[in-house]
């Protein structure tokens, strides 16, 4: 596979503030990469650096093999979809779409043809004569994407494009963006703070925090083998439960320190007596009949959504369990749980690194 975007040792400083710390990232041609992390983690700065809207302080940035460090945005041949859409309010949809062609001096007929083609693929044909203020949020979103598509750029950059849409439309546009990406064979970099968006859309997820890449890889690898406690807590919904524990004397079990000490069996050996944090995903904890589980907790709150029941324990820290079996569990009961040894994540209590 050829690399479309390549960052090596990229640093970005704003005065004394170190916004991007030694970023190494290789993006293959045709792949969909999601940059995800909490706000202020540097994901938008990284995206804007790819576009050239921010300059990088040190390191190399290559797009399609060419060094881009000091190339101005207009010569990078990348297209960006902004969170606010950034449609030109004084132009019609058609003029918005063809703006880049007009700048390049394309003929009227050429522009009309290109606009009609793109509008047909994104369902904007009937709206070409309208102004942005006359469009709904979803339609504006489509115009913003079409404006990028019409240029056939080396890479598409998305800066939280769905955050201004309502929940239902967001789910719909998620699929639409991914389908467009596949059909165009494009290379896309997608910034979001929503891990669900990252997991569902991307081939490759990059989790960032405080200007560093905490972990990158395929979505399921991140879910199955999070490199540290931060990634473990960030990926997955509801979030992973973290329980203070000690490795048992046999080295093959954990003794938890939530309420009464209880034992969780491991599938691998660790140093006996070591202080650790156990990570248990809510969907991996199974409520079972009395006598069949390995550990038990008093129930605090039960929330039913129909498809699943969310059980929160009356312990500190609180433990969340997702139950899909419609058990009749009520607040005040004691819930008995089991978990497969291979589903137990263990992190160092101090560094948070996976053990």
């Amino acid at each position: 596979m050829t690399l479309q975007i390549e960052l090596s040792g990229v640093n970005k400083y704003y005065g004394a503030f170190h916004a991007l710390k030694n970023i190494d990232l290789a993006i293959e041609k045709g792949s969909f990469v999601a940059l995800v992390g909490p706000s202020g983690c540097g994901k938008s700065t990284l995206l804007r650096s790819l576009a050239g809207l921010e300059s990088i302080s040190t390191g190399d940035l290559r797009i399609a093999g060419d060094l881009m460090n000091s190339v101005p945005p207009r010569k990078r041949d990348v297209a960006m979809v902004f969170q606010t859409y950034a449609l030109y309010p004084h132009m019609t949809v058609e003029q918005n779409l063809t703006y880049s062609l007009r700048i390049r001096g394309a003929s009227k007929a050429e522009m009309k043809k290109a606009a009609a083609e793109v509008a047909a693929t994104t369902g904007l044909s009937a709206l070409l004569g309208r102004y942005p203020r006359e469009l709904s949020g979803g339609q504006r979103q489509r115009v913003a994407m079409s404006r990028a598509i019409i240029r056939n750029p080396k890479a598409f950059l998305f800066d939280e494009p769905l955050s201004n849409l309502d929940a239902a439309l967001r789910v719909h546009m998620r699929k639409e963006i991914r389908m467009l990406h596949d059909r165009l064979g494009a290379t896309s970099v997608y910034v979001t703070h929503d891990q669900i968006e990252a997991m569902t859309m991307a081939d490759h997820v990059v989790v960032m925090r405080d200007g560093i890449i905490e972990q990158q890889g395929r979505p399921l690898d991140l879910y199955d083998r999070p490199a540290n406690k931060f990634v473990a807590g960030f990926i997955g919904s509801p979030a992973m439960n973290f329980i203070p524990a000690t490795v048992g004397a046999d080295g093959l079990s954990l003794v938890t320190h939530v309420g009464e000490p209880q034992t969780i069996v491991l599938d691998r050996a660790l140093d006996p007596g070591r202080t650790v944090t156990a990570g248990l995903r809510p969907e991996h904890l199974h409520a079972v009949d009395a006598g069949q589980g390995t550990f038990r907790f008093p129930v605090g709150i039960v929330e039913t959504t129909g498809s699943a029941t969310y059980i929160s324990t009356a312990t500190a820290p609180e433990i969340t369990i997702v139950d899909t079996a419609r058990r009749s569990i009520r607040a005040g009961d004691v819930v008995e749980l089991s978990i497969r040894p291979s589903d137990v994540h263990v992190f160092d209590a101090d560094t948070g690194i996976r053990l």
Partner: protein
Amino acid sequence: MKRLLSSITDGKGFDIALVAFPLGYLFLMSGLPLLYNVVMSFQEVDMFSLGSFWRPFVGLKNYRDLFAQPETLPILYNTGIFVAASIAGQFLLGFGLALFFWTNFPGASWLRGLFLVSWVMPGLVVGAIWNWILSGDFGVLNFLLRETGIIDGNIFWRSDPNFSLWAVIIANIWLGMAFNMILLSVGLSAIPKDLYEAAELDGANAFQRFWTITLPMMRSTIGAIISLGLIFTLQQFDLFAAITSGGPNNSSNVTQYWAWDLSFRQYDFAKGATISVIMIVFVMFASVVYVRSTRHEVRG
């Protein structure tokens, strides 16, 4: 009766009262004098009939007399030059400064505030300062032009008929430039930054961004500022009084100064009123443009 009273404290009556006060004030202080002025332009007015409203009606005689006077057309022409050159100078320099301060270098907002000084100063004071700058023998403007080799001999800005109008125009551009700059700065800062970023990524260079984003997005601001400029330059009186008094030989005279001169120095009130009516027509036109351009805001 009770319903009427309660509607004044809570309801339509209150709204009407709120509107009635400013409307009444406007009618009393602006509307009536305006109408009185229009009526006067159709009457024969002299010092003895000044006190009464029922003066002899003479139809369009004042207008015919006015245009029969040899100085009328040159003065109207001067007014046109004065308005056009002042607005062009104020707008272009103001826009240039607004763009300059928009780059937001350290101290930009502080310096921009300092520019407002020119707008705060009374026209008469500005006129006095420019009298010194423009002075033929020891003026600093002549000194600069001479030292840079642009002119050979001194220009007597205020007494040379070829330059007298331009002396006032230069001072007026200085006076109005800051106001233009502030309004245009506001317009510039109202354009979302991401539009420029989008245009930049779409391949537009700085000039293309200015031409395709800045100017069209500023259309309503520019319309407003030019019509306000028209109104303000047609009001400009102090500078003429301070710098040239309309002379020499009416070479720098404009309608607004002439109207005052006719009414209150030559006591020809009817002609003064007639000129004012002609100016009202122009200002009304500018007001319509202003109101329309502020109504058609193009935003997001």
